Structure formats: C-alpha cells, structure tokens
C-alpha cells in the first residue's frame, strides 16, 4: 500500500520549512488555519501568523500591503473564495502591484465533492492565468508541492498554487526538483501524448498501466504543473513527435491547462488537441470518486478517452465524443 498524503499537510510542512530560512515569510489564514494545516506554523512562528476570519478579498489587500513592506505572505484559503470572490483584489492589489505574495487555493477542483458547485473550483486556473504577472502552479504530488512552495518563496512576484484536499500518493522521488516554467516529460509516445497536472497525473499513470495491457504502447505522458509560464519549449518538442494531444485536468475545459496548451500549439505547430476536463457546466455534487468517474477523470475515464482518441486520430479526425453526453 503506497503512502497517501494530504496535500494541505505537504503545503503546510513546506511553508514551515521555507519560513525557518526566511524571517520575512508570514502565513495568513481566513478562518482556515486548521483546514490549511497551518497549526504548526502558528505554534513555531506566532508573530508571523495572522488570522483574519472570513474576509478573503480584504486579506488579499492586506497581503499586498505586507508584501509592499518587505514581507512574503502565504495566504491559504478555499479556492473559489481566494480566487473568485477576491478576483479584483488579486488583479489590482497583487498582480498590478507586482506584490510578492503567494496565494494558495485549497480543496480545489472537485475535491469539495458533495459540498457542490459553490465550493468547487473549476474556473480558478482560467482566472488566475488570465492575469499579467501571475504565476500559476498546479502540483501533482507531495514532492512537487514542497518544491513549488520553495520556488514560490524564491520567485519575486505573485504566485498562485492550487491544491486539492484528497490524499495523494508520491509520484516522484523525494530528490526530484521542479522549476517555474518547466514541465516534465515522463514518457514519450508517438500516437498520443497526455498532458496533465495536479490530481489527474496520478490517474493518468493508472490509465497508462491499463493502456499498456491493452497494447496501446505509444502513449506519452507529460506533467505540466507550471501552467503559467507554460513550458513552451517542451510543448513544441512534444508536438513534433506525437500525432495528437489529450489534455487532462480537474478543471473546466474553458481556459485551464487545456486553454494554455491550445493557445500555444495553435499558433506554433497545430495538431489535434482534445480537452478532457469538466465540460462547461456547474458540476454535480456527490462523492469525489464518483464525480471523477462521471467527468471521465478517473483512470478508467482517461483510459477510455485515450483509446477512442488514438483510434480517431489514426482515422484522421477527432470525434467530439461529448456531444451526446448529457451532464
């Protein structure tokens, strides 16, 4: 049984680690200290931890003021509230100001499962990556989370890190290093390449095992945690060596990683790109695994999509297989 870790715990441990080496790092909570696992930070650095209650938009403003005065705030809250409710403050107070503040969305994507659409976040990546100066990171495992918290602390400017709340396995060796603006080619494939980030990397790995067993051996896999800036060199390289791309993400198919990949490739080396995410609907409420199954983001869903897409590309066209599906 592989070890499973709460991504919020990985984040909180990493913030403690960077805070030990940099006294300017402060942690901010909007009634989130427990849920964001920031209890240890609060105990170790009581003078550098601030609770603000439920006022996410105002906390972003406070983060800007702290950053403009030399501090490096890490503000963690539930994703729709930190990115959507506070969007204008993120835009003006952080991005337009070039504020050296880090915002961390927790319980992202569908991980707030049966709480329903008010607590889902399927638009946050689209929103955050539309902002000039913003760096957008969707890490896939505990090692990536730790490393990207370190990278965010080093980067001078606003950074958005997206975390889930469902426990995740280690996918990388603990010595693996990650950079802003760099993706990872985990496997090359001539027929099709899956590009993914976050939780669905794990599911894509599982899908690859199933595909291998079925004889679909030419399927590649790319982890693209740095959605903005995106790894253009990697994308261009991949596009020259694969017949099609499937972007898999726990996000709306509007404007997320799929948007970023499509925007780049359509202007450089167009090739068939299919987006597998939650279609343009308010998602259902229900158990997480069942939601992932419903929107084909489970290993089985990815497996089926890759199998159908690979066949379709070989036939010369990409079928819109969502058109008859009633979500």
């Amino acid at each position, binding site marked *: 049984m592989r070890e499973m870790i709460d991504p919020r715990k990985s984040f909180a441990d990493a913030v403690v680690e960077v805070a030990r080496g940099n006294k300017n790092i402060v942690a901010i909570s909007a009634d989130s200290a427990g849920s964001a696992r920031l209890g240890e930070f609060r105990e170790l650095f009581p003078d550098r931890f601030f609770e603000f209650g439920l006022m996410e938009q105002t906390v972003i403003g*406070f983060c800007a003021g702290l950053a*403009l005065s030399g501090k490096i705030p890490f503000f963690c809250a539930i994703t729709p509230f930190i990115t959507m409710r506070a969007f204008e403050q993120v835009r003006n107070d952080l991005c337009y100001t070039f504020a050296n503040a880090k915002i961390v969305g927790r319980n992202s994507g569908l991980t707030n499962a049966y709480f329903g659409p008010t607590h889902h976040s399927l638009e946050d990546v689209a929103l955050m990556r539309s902002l000039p100066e913003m760096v957008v990171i969707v890490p896939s495992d505990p090692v990536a989370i730790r490393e990207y918290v370190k990278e965010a602390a080093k980067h001078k400017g606003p950074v958005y890190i997206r975390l889930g709340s469902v426990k995740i396995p280690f996918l990388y060796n603990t010595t693996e290093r990650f950079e802003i603006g760099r993706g990872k080619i985990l496997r090359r494939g001539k027929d099709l390449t899956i590009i993914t980030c976050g939780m669905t990397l794990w599911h894509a790995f599982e899908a690859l095992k199933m595909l291998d067993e079925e004889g679909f051996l030419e399927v590649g896999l790319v982890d693209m945690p740095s959605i903005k800036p995106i790894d253009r060199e990697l994308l261009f390289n991949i596009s020259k060596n694969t017949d099609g791309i499937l972007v898999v993400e726990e996000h709306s198919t509007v404007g997320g990683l799929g948007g970023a990949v499509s925007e780049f490739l359509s202007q450089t080396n167009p090739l068939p790109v299919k987006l597998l995410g939650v279609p343009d609907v308010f998602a259902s409420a229900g158990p997480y695994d069942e939601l992932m199954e419903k929107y084909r983001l489970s290993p089985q869903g990815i497996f089926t999509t890759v199998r159908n897409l690979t066949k379709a590309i070989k036939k010369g066209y990409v079928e819109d297989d969502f058109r008859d599906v009633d979500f």
Partner: protein
Amino acid sequence: MVKLTASDKADLVKKAACVRKKIVETICEGKGGHLGGALSCTDILVTLYFKILRLDPKHPQWDERDRFVLSAGHKCLALYATMALRGYFKEEELSSYATLDSPFPGHPDRHKLPGIEANTGSLGHGLAIGGGMALAGKMDGKKWKVYVLLGDGEIAEGSVWESAAAASHHKLDNLVAIVDRNKLQIQGPTREVMDMEPLAEKWRVFGWQVREIDGHNFDEIFTALSDIPVKKDYPTVIIANTIKGKGLSFAEDNYKFHQWQPTPEDCKRALAEMKKLEGV
C-alpha cells in the same frame, strides 16, 4: 494639543492655492479629470505632505518614511500637484498627465511614479493595503505610520468595513484613515445615493478612534493628525468635512464637477479664479 503656528498656516494656505491652481491648469490642458474630489482633499494632502508625513522626496523609497495611500485614486491630481510642490518631481512634468505612458495617468501607478505607494483606482482597496503595511510596520517595530485617504462615496464598498474590522482586530494604532467627506458622489448627494450615516458611530463600533474636523481648516487638520495614535492599540479615523470642488466657485458643492470636461470658456473663468486664489 499641538498647534500650527500662524506663519506655518499662512504657508499652507499658499501652498494649497498653488496645488488647486495646478489641478485646474492640468485639467484645462484639454484632457479632463476628476476635479471635485481633488479640490476637496487638497488642504488635507498639503497638510500631510508639508507638516505631518516623515518623508524624503529625493529618496521616495526611504525605509523609515510614513506611507500615504490614496485609496480614492481618482483624486490623484491633488496628489500629483502636492508631490510636485513637495519636490518629488518638477512641476512642468505634470503636463504629460493622461498622455501615453505618462507617469501621471488618471489613477496613480507606483511603477511609473516614485513616491506612489499603491496602485489604486478601484474603490475600497486602499484601507486593506494600508492595513497590510501597518501590520508589517508593527511586526518590525517601526515608528512609521500609514495614512489612507478615502472618499465618502467609496465607503459604501463592503471591503472598507472588512478592513476597518481587521485593523481594529489587529490593533493597528499606526494606521490612520481620513474620510474626505464632501458628501457628494457621481450620481448626487451621498446620503441619497447610499446613506452611510451615522458615519462617526459606524467607525466607532468598528473599534476605531474617531475625530471629526473641518477638512479645510488647517489648524484642525494639523491638530487631528499630530498625536497619532489617539489611543494605544486603536486605529484612528479622521472624518474631514469638506466641500466638493472647494476653491472654484462654480464647482463648489456641485456633484456635476466630480469629473470635469471643461470648455475653453470654463477654463478661462476657472484659471482667473485660481490666479486670484494664489494671490491670497
């Protein structure tokens, strides 16, 4: 109680007249601009920049400076003109106001003009940003203070009150909010558009020390800002009663001059009045 000397007061009166003249001249150079609010907060800004704020115009990023955040960013012409007079830049540079890539756009931009602390313009943002600065100052045991100027139409924004609660909760007694209460906003009287009265009481119940002054009386402005914090651990708000369009007879207390696109005749008349004012 700290009082302004007679000569200091006379000097502030003159400086305020210069600032008002510059505001009107700049708008009259054909670009239009937010006139009414700039004129209503002029006396406050002049008092701050010449008598209250610890600053060094030649070193705008001096770490020990007091911070001033113009939350009502549309009043920036008053800030630009005051900063010019204080020596941050040459007055003639202001003639590029509102032109392409000018350091003086219609809302302040800290990347373009050294001395601007925050990129404001969207209302309801400045008090939180100033609150964050004040929190950082407290963390580092700094002596500097943060002053945030708000419009009275602006305070209908809910974020202002979230910030007010947070500042009081975190005991930011190095934070001063100044409400430029000219009682008018774009659509008309603030009490008709969105009544925020009783204003002083509202701030008080949010945990602030409240002072209410005549925002055109230099003695009152100076005294109110001279002994901050009023009470240890409490943020202070100065409710400054002002007149929108102050100093330009036909614009005074008239909401239609919130944003002004003057005709050549308007300008002729306005500049004549400003010249007279400067001779005070």
